[in-house]
């Protein structure tokens, strides 16, 4: 659909009105989600709480409220952290609601501006639609970082001529990996488990070593790993930004790339992607061609930590004399703990590591402010949350912080750097891989 068709469509169509009303009605406005919502905590305003947002959505569905600019801004002020889902006694599917509300916002064009539309088209319809474009862009960034241009610019003070938002953005750009994930099939060393691995987009270009560590750990646990060349970005960026059609296109490409019937599981090591991939069934529920395959897919998607615990991963061995005392804490990525209710598994893996002493991170499940591209679109709120996270890391005394989502890792690294703190941030699977290598 082009833009003018879209606005015709929007004029006599409302995604929220089309939504199964019982999903909205499920909210009994009890307020139990309020104290867990970071935007309510910061503002103490009902409109910035889950209960308030759902009430606005319901008012739109009831035809009592226009898709106004205030409505639209509020839908995007939400972090999508899903802490409210964990707190909700009534089982409200907030994720489904907020995704639908954002599609509504985009259809109505309530936030349209030339700049925003250009950026959206660049990221959603171009860059994140193709692995090769993304890798190409990442390679350019790599040149910028490795050829000393970045260092030169940072040192020369030229940065200060950039507008503040650009400077903040520059600080958040990931350090690009020297080489990306190799997409060759890895045969099993022993047993008969066969799994697919989705290599992600940010994970692939900025944390390719996490993918290599994932492959190594799976191998060590007797898995054959299939890495189809045609696999695509999971589509979460699209889904979280009101582009469900884009998200569906990405999902279909992945369903084509992986032969789900031949796999025991599809593994993912980025919390945000896993959360999205587990919902392909809902995303494609009205697609007669892909519906069935999507159901099987959703049943088989596993976060790497979830899968390792499920198959009874091999505990790393070590000589008690070499046991370290470095303090290890765990940051719970929203889309793992709230989005997928995975919390015990990564901790079980981390506590099995011989070289660390475990410490609790206060408010470990409170959003760090990364939230997809939220730290770019809402830098103030994101910074407040980041500072809160950093102060807890500091008070925990941790030397190493485990984080299972690349967005969180980037955000937290930027915060640590700003504070001049020397804390390593690693994916749990990388720490497990290290432990195996040191056996």
């Amino acid at each position, binding site marked *: 659909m082009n833009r003018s068709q879209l606005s015709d469509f929007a004029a006599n169509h409302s995604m929220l009105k089309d939504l199964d009303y*019982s999903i909205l*009605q*499920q909210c*009994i*406005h*009890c*307020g*139990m989600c*309020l*104290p867990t919502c970071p935007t309510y905590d910061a503002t*103490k*305003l*009902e*409109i910035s*709480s889950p*209960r*308030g947002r759902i*009430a*606005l959505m319901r*008012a739109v569905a009831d035809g*009592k*409220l226009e898709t*106004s600019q*205030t*409505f639209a801004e*509020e839908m995007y002020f939400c972090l999508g952290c899903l802490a409210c889902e964990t707190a909700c*006694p*009534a*089982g409200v599917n907030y994720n489904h609601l907020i995704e639908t509300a954002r599609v509504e916002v985009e259809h109505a064009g309530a936030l349209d501006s030339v700049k925003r539309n250009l950026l959206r088209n660049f990221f959603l319809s171009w860059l994140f639609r193709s692995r090769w474009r993304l890798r190409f862009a990442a390679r350019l960034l790599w040149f910028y970082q490795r050829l000393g241009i970045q260092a030169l610019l940072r040192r020369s003070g030229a940065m200060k001529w950039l507008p503040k938002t650009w400077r903040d953005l520059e600080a958040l750009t990931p350090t690009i990996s020297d080489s990306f994930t190799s997409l060759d099939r890895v045969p099993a060393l022993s047993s008969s488990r066969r799994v697919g691995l989705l290599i992600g987009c940010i994970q692939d270009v900025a944390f390719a070593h996490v993918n290599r560590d994932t492959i190594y750990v799976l191998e060590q646990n007797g898995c054959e790993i299939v890495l189809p060349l045609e696999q695509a970005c999971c589509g979460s960026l699209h889904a979280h930004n009101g582009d469900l059609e884009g998200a569906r296109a990405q999902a279909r490409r992945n369903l084509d790339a992986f032969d789900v019937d031949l796999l025991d599981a599809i593994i993912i090591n980025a919390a945000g992607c896993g959360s999205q991939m587990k919902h392909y069934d809902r995303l494609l529920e009205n697609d007669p061609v892909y519906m069935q395959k999507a159901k099987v897919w959703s049943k088989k998607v596993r976060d790497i930590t979830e899968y390792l615990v499920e198959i009874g991963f091999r505990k790393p061995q070590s000589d008690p004399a070499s046991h370290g005392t470095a303090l290890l804490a765990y940051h719970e990525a929203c889309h793992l703990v709230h989005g997928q209710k995975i919390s015990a598994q990564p901790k079980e893996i981390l506590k099995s590591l011989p070289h660390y002493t475990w410490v609790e991170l206060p408010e470990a499940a409170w959003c760090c402010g990364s939230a997809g591209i939220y730290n770019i679109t809402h830098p103030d709120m994101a910074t407040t949350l980041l500072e809160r996270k950093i102060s807890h890391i500091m008070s925990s005394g941790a030397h190493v912080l485990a984080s299972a989502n690349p967005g969180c890792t980037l955000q937290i690294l930027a915060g640590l750097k700003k504070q001049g703190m020397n804390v390593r941030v690693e994916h749990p699977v990388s720490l497990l891989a290290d432990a195996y290598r040191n056996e």
Partner: protein
Amino acid sequence: MDNRIVSRLTDLLGEDRVLTKPEDLLVYGYDATPMMHETPGCVLFPDSTEQIGAILRLANAERIAVVTRGSGTGLSGGSIPVPHCIVVCTVRMDRILEIDRANLTARVQPGVLTAKLDEAAKACGLFYPPDPGSIKISTIGGNVANNSGGLRGLKYGVTRDYVMALEVVLASGDILRTGTACMKDVAGYNLKDLFVSSQGTLGVITEILLRLVPKPASKRTLLATFPSIQAAAETVSSIIAEPIVPCTLEFLDRMTISCVEDYAHIGLPLDCEALLLMETDGHPLVTEEEARAMERIAREHGALQVQIAKDDFEAERLASARRSASPALARVAPTTILEDATVPRNRLAEMVTFIQKTAEKYQIRIGTFGHMGDGNLHPTFLTDERNTDEIHRVEQGFAEIFEKAIALGGTITGEHGVGLAKKRFLPALIGQVGLNVHREVKRAFDPNMILNPGKIFD
């Protein structure tokens, strides 16, 4: 709302403390009561007693209704706005002003969340017993204005039992201070008790002095299932006659048990009619002995199964059966209406049986659970607000349940308050004289009827 009023309020509070956008007003239209919504004229966030005084002076002079709101978790519609009113929201007055370990008191602003106070007390080795299910988000101001209860009512009482003194802004804008930090105080009328459960109709509570108690050293938790409601009720009576005063004696009926099991998978037996969660706290030797005695009594009354938690983890698992009751029921139907009819303890079995018969008679679904120790039941109607025919039968059903509660010497609300939801049932309970006295008291405090008008009674 009139621009002139808005600009005077903005002068008083500052621009960011006055909300007037339609989207903002819409989300202060509800509390946790089902099927109620009304749009206010503006929403204010004062942060001092003086500011509230100035707001009320203005409202009183201009005859504008004022509805006070905490976190909006009330279940009787107490903080539902009156059309075009001013909503005074207390959530920014959220400071714990003092915890006095010598006098065992806490002085707090009204917007302090109940759980925050409890945490602060625990950090000093003390304990604030009233624990409504909404403890993580309800405000102390709301707790006092509703006289909220919780799971520990039998042994520890309700919010009223902890309120020692109040600072209240009256409709005139004057500031009333009533009560002291003394355990004994008989100077003049006991005015502070008038404000407890007044639901914002007599004044705006701006500061509260609360009593704290030492934290009990240990706790034992038991769960028992019974073949009949009578057996569970008799167990409760015998425990109290023993005499043991457990801190918790909570009950679930068959319908609730099966919803809880569906939702939380605790491993509850489904072939029973009633379940009791029992807790005793205090000195370890005493709780040990009381737990054994409660187990014996339950078995003597034909309990099908009795489990005593071995450790905190297991205690938590057993207690989750009760804590899951309301969420588990909420998931079953689009609309849940949670009532709180209360009867004297010895009439409980009769009341529960009546509720089940009423459900059959009107072909509606009701799950009942509640605080068996203090006679406070929560018949929960599972329905759909869009099904007008069923809603009509639900209304007939709860009218009969309230009548029965009154006939048994009970009350129409044990802890949620009358608000809007139960207003029409109040006259039958308190009679014409009772109603007249209510009206006189209201007139004395609020002659222009600006404070939460239309709530509790007309």
